């Protein structure tokens, strides 16, 4: 059953191009589905259309097999957590959690029970009489979560719920939300602009960009098989290296050449031409060389302790990022020879993925088997 999106489109003005175009997706019951994309890609708009706060211009939204277009938000039986938390400043914590239940005229005994349970679940029981302004950001966030829990709906929508928290709290809330979602068996649609949140929390990820769905897959599926330039660049820090490369020799070839030292060997031959090859920074290697040898110059070194990020300028004026585990001593302006270790993606002229060279998950499988 779950939630089904078929050709969902949002247009605000007839004469302008849609802010969201032809979104298709199936969200399974009980999964954590992350919608990720840069700001302005329409991810919040999509969430609001699912919630029913704004109308759907075109396409069909089905929840548990029933068409939901035009059904008012309260009849969609879902809960929502807002980026601003949307807490009522004049109500205390318990009343904030009880707000929707009271509006639905639930029996007082049932309301009390649900509020108590929800507050206990987010560890806010002793704060029940506080006003929102007397709470920290993290506690406010929990009140918003408790409100969603108390509604007892099986579908929960979250709109960038962690973006107002500091980095440490964000990491903690990330796992708390995930835990809560599993415990309650929620179908959770989670909107974020943060690829780390998408990678760490999701069962499935939808990548939105330029009003279109770029890819829907599991987090590792997206990391290991990015559908195009954008997806490849959006996931993984530091960013993937996208380098222009041509086929070796005259005709079809199984080798792509970036420059004299930087080659990528392919499993299958490609037609002659120029392609973009994507290599993750940890799949690049470097060797310091004497004097003016090599094919690049180090321009920046970031030592993080457990890994070292090296930025280098190739001789054809393209910047590359290389990640080495452990601590590597490289000097600025040092000449180096940069090469590719193996796994790489090849993108065509339309920026779409056309070939993979020993994807990273293949390595993993080889080890575990």
């Amino acid at each position, binding site marked *: 059953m779950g939630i089904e999106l078929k050709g969902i489109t949002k247009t605000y003005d007839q004469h302008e191009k849609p802010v969201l175009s032809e979104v298709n997706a199936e969200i399974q019951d009980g999964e954590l589905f992350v919608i990720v994309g840069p700001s302005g890609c329409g991810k919040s708009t999509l969430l609001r259309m699912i919630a029913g706060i704004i109308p759907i211009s075109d396409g069909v939204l089905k929840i548990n097999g029933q068409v939901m277009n035009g059904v008012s938000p*309260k009849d969609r039986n879902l809960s929502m957590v*807002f980026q601003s938390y*949307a807490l*009522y400043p004049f109500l205390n914590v318990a009343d904030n959690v009880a707000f929707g239940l009271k509006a639905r005229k639930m029996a007082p005994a049932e309301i009390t029970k649900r509020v108590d349970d929800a507050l206990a679940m987010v560890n806010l029981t002793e704060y029940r009489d506080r006003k929102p302004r007397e709470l920290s950001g993290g506690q406010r966030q929990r009140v918003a979560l408790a409100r969603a829990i108390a*509604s007892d709906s099986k579908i929960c929508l979250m709109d960038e719920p962690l973006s107002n928290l500091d980095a440490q709290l964000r990491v903690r809330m990330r796992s708390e939300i995930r835990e809560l979602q599993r415990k309650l068996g929620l179908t959770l649609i989670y909107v974020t602009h943060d690829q780390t949140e998408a990678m760490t929390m999701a069962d499935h990820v939808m990548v939105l960009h330029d009003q279109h769905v770029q890819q829907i897959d599991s987090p590792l599926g997206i990391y290991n098989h990015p559908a195009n330039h954008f997806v490849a660049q959006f996931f993984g820090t530091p960013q993937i290296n996208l380098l222009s490369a041509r086929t070796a020799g005259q005709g079809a070839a199984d080798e792509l050449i970036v420059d004299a030292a930087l080659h990528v060997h392919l499993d299958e031959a490609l037609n002659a031409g120029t392609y973009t090859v994507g290599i993750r920074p940890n799949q690049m290697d470097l060797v310091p060389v004497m004097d003016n040898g090599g094919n690049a110059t180090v321009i920046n070194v970031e030592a993080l302790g457990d890994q070292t990020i090296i930025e280098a300028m190739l001789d054809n004026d393209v910047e590359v990022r290389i990640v080495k585990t452990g601590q590597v001593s490289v000097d600025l302006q040092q000449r180096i020879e940069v090469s590719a270790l193996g796994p790489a993606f090849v993108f065509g002229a339309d920026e779409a993925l056309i070939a993979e060279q020993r994807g990273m998950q293949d390595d993993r499988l080889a080890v575990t088997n």
Partner: protein
Amino acid sequence: MIDSLSPTKPTPKQPQAEEKLTAKVTSFELKKNDKYYAWLFLGPSILLLTVFVFFPMIRTFYLSLFLTDTFGNPTVFVGLKNYTTLLKSASYMASLKATGTYVIGVSVFTIVFGLLLAAMANQKLRGIGFFRTVFTATMGVSVSVSAVFWLFMFNPSIGILNQVIKSFGAKPIMWLTTPSWAMVAVIATTVWMHLGFTFLLFFGALQSVPKSLYDAADVAGASPRYQFWHITLPMISPTMFFVAVITLISGFKSFGLIDLMTAGGPTNATNLLVYRVYKDAFMNGNYAQASTEAIILAIIIAIITFIQFKLLAKRVNY
């Protein structure tokens, strides 16, 4: 203090620290020179307040304890007799009642209509910007202009209100010459005048309620009506309190409009407390009585404002 904490180690720096402390304290005291500056800066406002506020206040209270001649000079000291006479007078009680009716009527209708207009203007409708401007327009109209303007509308024979009533075949109303209708007329005019500013305050308050609160309520299953009573009203309650205070006080002080429209008539039906003070002092030449009335009015306003703050502050939500 530090000594008692470490008695075995006498610290040589101790006296120095104390010296520093005393030096600091003296630096906060005003030097002789500073005192002159203080008076210099306070002087103008003290002078103005004395001449225009403190002296008249004290003089009014002083006069209220005497009988006065026609020039307003005190003649015979009578103590609080002016007060007891006044509070026993039926006409003063009538004025008090009229003022109560007027002030409550003005406050209630100003708040209700101001909020209604603001709620309408807050909707996303085509051309609503025009109405937002129109609704605030009464702010730019002076008391005298609006009084004259409404006088024309209330005119029994040529006024538009009676024209409309007549067109429905009903009997025309003698707006300003029937006691009960005269009160309605002055209340309506005052409400109309207050409406622009009140609208603006309420509109601003409504606009500042975060949209996400309503979105959350939509999803939670609250009807629009429930949202109005349980989100909008609590969120704008501070503004409502402010509006209540200013309309109530300005109602007590309403003078120009009464003077121009009814001059306290007919048969003292709109003879509000402030207008009564003016009439008794400058038309009847009874300065002692006018002073007494002024003091009573001041006390009433003070008490009501105090109660308002005590009562409403509890119910204003944040």
